[in-house]
């Protein structure tokens, strides 16, 4: 992907340069689109209540680490609890939960050019579909009836409408003309996905998946949803569950139950291997296998996990009151190849390609 994209950029640049220039230059110099074009970002939530979250940038070869890029470029703080980020065209949308805002930056230079600060209430995740963006919002976390998806017109970055949904909307996924919303359940627990038609921005259906759907991945029309199950302290503990959704029919086509007290999280995918965290270890399940794996591939309790090009990027939030660590594992050998200090409570890894 990354290589392909680079070749395309090079190709476009060549076209432009060659069409504008009558000189026959032997060497074509391509200006990078920005300092942060080749690498990935880590969103760091930052301390709760006071202070600011940050975004770290790490170059592809890990040699260049820059910790507070938003502040460095824009000389201002992002805000409190940097929950997540998403991309649309050449922009990055940084969702700042406790400040009820989204900072919009050029994804290559990180220059801020817009802020959405009206119409959000406890925003969680962002996803784009063409010129439309969707943001899950908890609303008042103690009110289960005011949760919604904010719809953003990405041409002017204004919230144009809201779609009320069941409580606790969290992760989002676009599949063709549908938006899938995983209802993890906010401060409580929920057990459904909402399906929203993105042409009409209208609600289609809900799918019962399992308690506390906390992460999703898509592979060839199959949406894999990992449900953590209700935790012990709810007094109604339920097991975790891995569910496969057929996105043509919006129905559950396969489900795997974990042990009664097992609560997996952080589902990610490495070609056909589903990777998730459970009991301070990382497991890998082949999509086609009919059983859950019993042996782990990596040990460690991670706050977030993302796979990219055969490597697992796992964040460790430590004591949640000091800088965390990003660990990179090579999934062919399952060995740690990098450990990089990042910001406070690193909650997500995002690749700029």
């Amino acid at each position: 992907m990354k290589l392909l994209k680079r070749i395309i950029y090079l190709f476009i640049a060549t076209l432009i340069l060659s069409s504008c220039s009558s000189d026959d230059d032997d060497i074509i110099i391509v200006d990078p689109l920005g300092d942060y074009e080749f690498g990935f970002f880590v969103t760091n939530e930052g301390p709760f209540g006071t202070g600011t979250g940050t975004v770290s940038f790490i170059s592809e070869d890990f040699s260049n680490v820059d910790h507070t890029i938003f502040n460095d470029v824009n000389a201002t703080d992002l805000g409190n609890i940097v929950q997540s980020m998403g991309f649309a065209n050449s922009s990055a949308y940084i969702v700042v939960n406790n400040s009820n805002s989204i900072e919009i930056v050029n994804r290559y230079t990180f220059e801020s050019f817009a802020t959405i600060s009206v119409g959000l209430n406890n925003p969680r995740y962002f996803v784009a579909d063409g010129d439309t963006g969707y943001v899950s919002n908890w609303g008042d976390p103690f009110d289960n009836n005011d949760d919604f998806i904010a719809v953003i017109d990405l041409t002017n970055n204004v919230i144009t409408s809201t779609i009320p949904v069941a409580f606790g909307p969290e992760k989002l996924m676009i599949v063709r003309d549908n938006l899938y919303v995983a209802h993890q359940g906010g401060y409580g627990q929920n057990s459904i996905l909402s399906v929203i038609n993105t042409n009409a921005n209208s609600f289609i259906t809900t799918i019962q998946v399992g308690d506390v759907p906390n992460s999703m991945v898509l592979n060839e029309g199959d949406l894999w949803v990992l449900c953590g199950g209700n935790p012990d302290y709810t007094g109604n503990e339920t097991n975790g569950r891995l569910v496969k959704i057929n996105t043509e029919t919006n129905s559950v086509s396969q489900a795997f139950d974990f042990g009664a007290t097992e609560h997996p999280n952080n589902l990610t995918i490495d070609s056909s291997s589903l990777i998730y965290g459970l009991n301070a270890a990382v497991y890998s399940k082949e999509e086609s296998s009919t059983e859950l794996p019993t042996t782990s591939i990596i040990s460690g309790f991670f706050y977030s996990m993302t796979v990219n090009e055969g490597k697992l990027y796992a964040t460790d939030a430590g004591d949640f009151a000091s800088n965390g660590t990003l660990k990179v594992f090579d999934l062919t050998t399952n060995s740690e190849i990098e450990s990089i200090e990042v910001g406070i409570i690193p909650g997500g890894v995002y690749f700029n390609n």
Partner: protein
Amino acid sequence: MERVYLYLLLFICATPMYAQLDSIQKLEEVLLIDSKLDDYSDGYQLTSISDTLIERNKASLTDVLRFNSAIYFKENGYGMVSSPSFRGTNASQTAVIWNGININSNLNGQTDFNTISPNSVSDIVIRSGGGSSQYGSGAVGGSIHLNNRISFKKQKENALRLGYGSFSTLEGSFKTKQSNKKYYVDLGVDFIDSKNDYEYINLEQKNENGEFSRFNVSANTGLKLKKGSLSWNTNYFLSNRNFSGSITAPSDDHYKDVTTRNLVSWKTLKNKWASTLKTAHLLERYRYYPNKEKELYFEGKSNTYLGDYLLEYELLSNLKVSSVINYTYIKAEGNNTGNNDRNTLAAIFLLKHQVSKKLSYSINLRQEFLNDFENPFLFSVDAKYQLISWYSLKLNASKNFRVPTFNDLFWDAGGNENLQPETSYQGEIGNVFHWKSLQFKLNGFYITSKDLIKWQPSGSGLWMPVNISESENYGLEFSGIYSRKFKSHLLSVSGNYAYTSAIDKEKDKQLIYVPYHKVTGLLSYNFKRFSAYYQFLFNGEVFTTTDNVGILDAYSISNIGLEYEIKRQPLPIKIGIKINNIFNKYYENVAYRPMPNRNFQTFINFKF
């Protein structure tokens, strides 16, 4: 009982007698309900904060102590939750003692210093160093004693004070006091109400959602008996606060506190015996509204019932011993902690020996029973030796503890019923120099603590408290006071400096929100009916993250005040103005929570 004491005496010492103690048979004209404080703390530094100093920061007990002692306060925005750090320990390791009774919250182990009205006490004593054997859980770094003294002398006083200041701050207090040789009664009512909407300097932001109001009533009565005294102290406190937002996060929170405290003490004297029977009830209740516009709230409350019997015996003219039996029953309930209770029986033994005019020492022992967790045996020994007329040496060493709070034990979800008390050992060397009107003190202390309760995420991601941390604190404290009078002019200078190192041993880093350096200064000038003062505070940088990467800058601020008395009979009036933060400096006490810009307070005080 007498025999037990005799054995103890033989066991502990058999030294010749020189000096005499104050006889316990004499009932003092000014009665300190907590008589232990004066009697068994010779080797500790006791610093008294006078009512004049309290008067100058009338709006906030946090400010009274912040500007007049080495204690550091972490205030979550002006007027919001304010927690002390004494010698680098945390808020639940600083005991607040009201007339001898520990009033730290049973729910979170702390006292929020913005939920105590400075008007409700007659004096404040800061007792540096460990005091668990006398005062129980939490007296690790030191204890702060809020006293209501009862005096059996003829007096009649009424005072009304009204004040108005920046950020729509209105305050008022009324106090009446009447007493003679037989009885004493005082009644005080005070309130403060503030929008607290100060502007953040150089930021286009205001302190939002920061309004607070407080209301307090306190009454103290005393009756002199033929051989003893009977007294009743009572206090009611109500506070309504919104919790202010920070630079990066707005807030809709609202918080309501109610506390009531009642204490009845009956003191009897007979020959060489003195006994004090106390019974007390404490109520604390909070309601937290995550959104002030909505009905939803979370609440918690706790009732403490306490019975305490102190028996004191003057074994020799220079040796007295006391034993205390204290029974405490706590019942707490709340949305997050369920219904739980705790029974504690404590046996305390105190000995004070005035070996000579120059040398005295005391021994305090405490053993608790009934608690569900381990009950460590606690002790403290202290001594004072006056080497020369202008120099005394003070020494103390103690073992102290902090018991798990109801939140630690029962919080849903995460509470851990297997928690044990935190324990710590400490030692201190104090030096007191005194020449006429110049006095200064230099203390060095060392505290080592283990099994500190820390909330941390468990394997399942759930936050739970565990007895895991260890810390090591050491430091130096310097305080000095000098005053000079010539003709009608009175000039006095005082100051504090503290160096505090508080190390998290696991990480080998300074604990967060503990400044290495803190300085306070006070310059007062008095000429006839006019007085002026200058308050100064330097707060060194603090770390905001446990890896010491996040740093909050040091700051210094200055306040000035002017007061003038119009002695017009029959209604003497005092008027005053105070300017806080005169240089209009931007500073944060907690990261991203700016403190007030330059602001004014004015008052008028009538006496009749």
